């Protein structure tokens, strides 16, 4: 009963698990590099939710700090990623990840 009324750890974890799944799904299936990178962001955010939830339920600040840093890292990553993708677009005239496979085997 209480499970339904009050929001507990499990809900957070479930959400984050879903986010992770979405992120991975995006990474694996989307052709557009940008979308793929968004998928990566989702993964990171899934982790963030975990951290915050755990830090709330375990007490202690580590989780929060971690989440903050993850956000920062994600931002930096996004910047670099965009630069690379733009460069890719300059050369290949497309950002289709799956089509960029000149090096193999």
């Amino acid at each position, binding site marked *: 009963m209480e499970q339904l009324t009050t929001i507990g750890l499990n809900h957070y974890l479930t959400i984050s698990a879903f986010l992770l799944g979405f992120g*991975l799904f995006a*990474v*694996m*299936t989307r052709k557009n590099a940008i979308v*793929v990178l968004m998928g990566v962001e989702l993964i990171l955010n899934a982790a963030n939710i975990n951290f915050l939830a755990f830090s709330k339920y375990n007490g202690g600040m580590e989780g929060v700090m971690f989440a903050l840093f993850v956000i920062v890292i994600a931002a930096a990553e996004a910047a670099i990623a965009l630069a690379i993708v733009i460069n890719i677009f300059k050369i290949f005239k497309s950002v289709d*990840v*799956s089509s*960029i*496979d*000149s*090096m*193999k*085997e």
Partner: protein
Amino acid sequence: MHSLIQLSIVVLLLPLLSFIILIFFNRRIARNGDFIGVGILGTAFGISAYIFWTVIVQTYDPAFRIAWDFTWIDLGNVPGVGPLQIKMGIVIDNLTSIMLAMVTLISLLVHLYSTGYMAGDKNYGRYFAFLGIFTFSMLGIVLSDNLFAIYIFWELVGLSSYLLIGFFFEKDSAADAQKKAFLANRVGDIGMWLGILILYSQFHTFSFEQIYANLAAGNFGLSNAWLTAAGILLFMGCVGKSAQFPLHVWLPDAMEGPTPVSALIHAATMVAAGVYFVARIFIILTPDALHVIAFIGACTAFMAATIAITQNDIKRVLAYSTVSQLGYMVLGLGVGAYSAALFHLVTHAFFKACLFLGSGAIIHAMHHEQDMRWMGGLRKHMPWTFATFTLATLALAGLPLTSGFLSKDAILAGAIGFAKVEGGGIFYLIPVLGFFSAMLTAFYMGRQIWLVFFGDSRTHLKPADKSHQVHHAHDTHDTHADDHHAAHSVHEVSWNMRAPLVILAALSVYAVYSPDPLDGAKGWFMKMIPTPATVVGEANPQKGALLTATAAPHLAGVVPTSEVPAPAHGATATSTESAAAVGGHGEAVASHGEAKGGHLYTDPRQAEIVHAGHAAHYTAIYISSIMVALGIIMAFVVYVFKIIDPEKTARLIRPLYLFSLNKWYWDEIYEATVIRGSMVLAKILSWFDTNIVDGMVNGVALLVKKFAFVNDGFDRHVVDGMVNFTAFTVNTSGAVLKKLQTGKVQTYVVMVLLAVFGYFVFYFTRLIY
């Protein structure tokens, strides 16, 4: 060191010296240094003659024996055996001194003869060098006091025979013959070698004396089958060297060598070495082994004789007669007629050498015509040769008053006695074959004499198209040669070729060996070379133990009465059953003891055989005389009175005739089985090696080529270099795995997740169960 030993060493080394000088410097010396060879051999003969004199004539003692040895290989203190050395040594006894004199004499004569016969050959000097090394090795065999040394010189003799047979190596036939001879000998040698190994493996020594002593002491660790095997295997060496059936095939081909060589090596000395060797090991041969030897000898004697009948090449006839006579000697040893066999060895050496040298003279005179069918009437042109040749022939045929008669008769007598003792039956085959061969011998020798020396010259009859049978160099000459020219082109040979003939012929007279023209046993030879007492008894080493008590330390071939205990005394020393055996043969032994000038055989069977042999002496004389007479008469009937036409008879019994003419097809059989077989096997194996063992290189390469993934991305050489299938799988797995690297980053991600998921499932299940 005894002075005789020193002398014998000198004798041994002199021919080697001649070899070394001539092989290196023959071109620099006048006459290519033939006089060096002759001179050295002369010296050697002088010394050996002195040895002979001292041993045989002065110290007239059947038991005479001096020995000397030195450590050749020192294996140190071997665990389980103790200090172990391989010694080399020299032994001089009656037999040795006789052989020494004989070998050096014949070698000297052949040297002398060759100065005439080989004159003008482009490798004249090298020829004498080879003769030198041969003489050296032969003397080595004679003097050695242990099996290992004998084996060594045995091989060396094989080598020198190889070199001399192939002396005219440009002739393919000669090259084939020398290879054949060496290989056939090798086959015999491995048998001999195995026999030596059997004895060594038990006693850790090669020395005859110690082997005798150990066997006498019954120290032989293995079963008696092994001992018999050892005997037979050792005998195989003789089969090879002495051209016994079934390894006789090389000797006739060996006639490709220069004729003096045939006289020296393939008639007088080397082939006799086999017999000499068997004599050396005689006392360790078990009765079973002796039976095998006897039968082989008999077969050889008979087979060779039958072949000799139909041969047309003068040397081949002599070659087969040599085989046949060697068969006699082996037979003699086999039946225990030890002295007789060795006696025949010596007599045969002289008259057969004489025959070969004579034939050499004939060939020389006939401008290298060897086919008797185109000879004839030489009596007038070459009286010396004729006389000597005939005398030797009589000796070979075994007519009375010749040396051959004495020895052959003694052997046959021994054979009869042996058959008696063994209880007749199959064993009578041996004397029967012996006598029959005697008849055949008389026949074909008569034929030869007639064809060569009597009638008119038939050179002109020789058809030109037959030229392939003879030397290319001469057939042109012969084809336009008319009778007149042929007749006059033939002339007696020079003195240096004549002298040896005379000497050798003189040595074929009975008087040299025995006062009694009918009984060799009365002669000095058979007195000096009495049959030694066996140390292995009736296939039972323990029997030999009779001797150990006293005589083991110095087991000379023979044991004089003085040193040997009475049988009764011996019997006390041994087990009861052997005592009973001795007792059973008591009177035989005793009576024999008187008969044979005080020789006592501790092994009753042997004693009985020797005794019976002497008993059968006169029977043998009668039978053999009759057979020989028959043979001669037949020869006359066919070739002199022309009552029977040989051609017609040949056609009448064509299969038999061909069978004999083609030497019982032995060459063909060996060609088809052994030689072809091993060649095919070799081919198969080498194919197997390159294709199968080599990791199916080609197969791998092929598979890899066929393999779908394989592109040119991989170096073929490495593919080929991989000599096994793991490498193959490595490649292909690589080819498969590299496909995972699709180049699409998303598939990489998928892989990662799959991996994580897979691991998760794996550990999760492990967690649950």
